[in-house]
């Protein structure tokens, strides 16, 4: 166990004009035993960051510290880390037991009997003791991932690095393994950096999320903090499924207006200048269906996607389409004319040009500060 710190980390590939900056001035710290999820779209620099921490890629600039010690110059095996890869990266010619044992053989002075004992106890922990004599090609995806996890656990590292470990699994197995990894991480209490592009994984597993885009850190915080108080439009749209609705509006007096849309300016957005344009963000689950002409806007229901307990309905309002989440099937039907409304504390306001949140809510749902301040409307 150890604290992991990244200070002004920069990684550039190539030289001169052809160089590409994959990670820019990234500063992060992961507390002892914490599970931090690096999340972002493909090419955002999250895997490069992980490779830099692991020592698989050299760092262009900045410092990486594990347990307070700078490790930039250390080789991967000297950093006391273990890594789990997306495609398992099991050695195909070795049995599961040999895969688990290999790292111990190469880095420790343990005897064969001691190594065997560690292999067996790790296998028991992961429930793969019956698979120890099998080679990777005869294992299922889930079993392979367990062996890969075992290979990381067996070395008792200070930091776990996981590079999209569930991406190759089918949906149901992914859900099961997600819970198991979370449980395992809690039990072992090992500092963990987990990379994924799946925001559901990020939300459900993380102690904290670090959202990245184009090599830069967009926001770091607890999952619900990123969900309810996104720092910018990118985080707001990336976190949450379906994605947050965005409506271009202009402030006119005490109202935000757009074609077919009119909404009172929330108190916390009072400082915004009248006549300027903004982007309003409203999560699909925050929108209520009301009688036509009684809410912020009135529109016609287009496609409805029934999901069982909930449905996603797409409502066309002038030249904008809002996605709303409704209870169960049958709440709205295609072609219905409906009104939509939403509570002021669920409205996010972003700068049109920079995408920065200009009127963030002050707390999360349930916080005293939140209920006092944000429900008031001008």
């Amino acid at each position: 166990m150890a604290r992991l710190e990244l200070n002004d980390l920069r990684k550039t590939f190539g030289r001169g004009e052809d160089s590409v900056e994959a990670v820019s001035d990234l500063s992060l710290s992961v507390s002892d035993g914490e599970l931090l999820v690096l999340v972002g779209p493909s090419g955002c620099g999250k895997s490069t960051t992980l490779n830099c921490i692991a020592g698989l890629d050299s760092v262009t600039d900045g410092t990486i510290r594990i347990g307070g010690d700078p490790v930039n110059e250390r080789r991967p095996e000297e950093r006391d880390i273990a890594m789990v890869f997306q495609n398992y990266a099991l050695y195909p010619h070795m049995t599961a037991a040999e895969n688990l044992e290999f790292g111990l053989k190469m880095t420790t002075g343990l005897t064969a009997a001691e190594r065997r004992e560690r292999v067996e106890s790790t296998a028991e922990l992961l429930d793969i003791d019956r698979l120890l004599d099998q080679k990777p090609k005869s294992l299922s995806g889930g079993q392979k991932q367990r062996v890969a996890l075992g290979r990381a656990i067996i070395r008792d590292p200070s930091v776990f690095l996981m590079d999209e470990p569930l991406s190759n699994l089918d949906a149901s197995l992914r859900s099961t393994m997600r819970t198991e990894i979370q449980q395992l991480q809690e039990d072992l209490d090992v500092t963990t950096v987990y990379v994924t592009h799946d925001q559901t994984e990020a939300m459900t597993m993380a102690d904290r999320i670090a959202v990245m885009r184009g090599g830069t850190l967009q926001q770091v915080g607890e999952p619900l903090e990123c969900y309810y108080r996104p720092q910018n439009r990118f985080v707001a749209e990336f976190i949450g499924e379906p994605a947050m609705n965005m409506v271009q509006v202009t402030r006119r007096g005490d109202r935000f207006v757009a074609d077919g849309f009119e909404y009172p300016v929330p108190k916390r957005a009072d400082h915004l200048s009248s006549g300027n344009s903004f982007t309003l963000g409203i999560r699909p689950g925050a929108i209520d269906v009301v009688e036509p002409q009684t809410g912020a806007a009135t529109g016609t229901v287009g496609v409805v996607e029934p999901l069982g307990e909930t449905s996603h309905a797409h409502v066309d309002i002038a030249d904008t389409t809002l996605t709303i989440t409704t209870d169960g099937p049958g709440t709205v039907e295609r072609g219905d004319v409906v009104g939509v409304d939403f509570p002021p504390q669920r409205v996010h306001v972003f700068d049109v040009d920079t995408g920065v949140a200009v009127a963030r809510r002050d707390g999360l749902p349930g916080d005293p500060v939140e209920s006092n301040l944000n429900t008031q409307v001008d």
Partner: protein
Amino acid sequence: MAGRTDTTFGGARLDVSWSQIRRYCYDGVTYLVYGLAVLFFLFPVLWVISLSLRTEGAVYTSLELLPSNPSLDSYREVLDSGLLRWMRNTLFVAVLSVTGILLVTTPAAYGFSRFRFRGRRSLLLAVLGFQMISPIVIVLPLYDIMRTLGLTESHTGLILLYIGLQIPFSLWLLKGYFDTIPTELDKAARIDGCNRLQTLRYVLLRPVMPGIAVVAIFNFVLTWSEFVMAYTMLSPGGEDLYTLSMGIYVFDNQLATQWTNIAAAAVIGIVPIVIFFVALQRYFVRGLTDGAVKG
């Protein structure tokens, strides 16, 4: 019923559809083409075996594939004339050449596949360019260089030549196999404490084995049957140095061409290659198909 025809054949009524008839015809043509292809490749071998079992006189008088009076005299004669020594020489040259080629190309292919360094692409293209030069074009300058180095009339010189000449093709082939192995294996090995050479030795060598088998078989067959370089480098040194291909040439002398002896020596010469191929065939076939599918 549409597409179905009732056919009377020899008094029996056949109920077959047009699609079935088309499939039978397609299968028939396919097997016919396969049969012709097999015959095309197998007939010369069968003919050489047939020649080796004839008496010298029957070579020009009979066109039968199965000789009417088969004889093993040619085999006795070639075995008494030094064929075994030539085969030993050939085996020595082939094994050491293949070993040398693999020792050079395996780490080189790994390096070209895994490392990005300045001039990598140019070097690869230069290697490919060298492969495009026919060995026959450079045989005389090579002989001159080897003579200056004192490496003519020795198996060592010939082995070094074979290694040098076969590196480009083998390197490209093997690099292709390394490219198909995910780089995550290298990363996992490095985190498990391997340096680059240990990664190659303990982790990548086994997955790339089909490629190594292809390179080994290809070069073994090539060096086993190579004539021009061997003849140029070894012929002044006397028959004791000869390789198999040169030894067979001995039977085509100024006085006569001993076809039955040439055929018998050729048949015996094929045997080690067949054994070698059968031993590595599993890897060879897998290697070829892997290459085809994964590029």
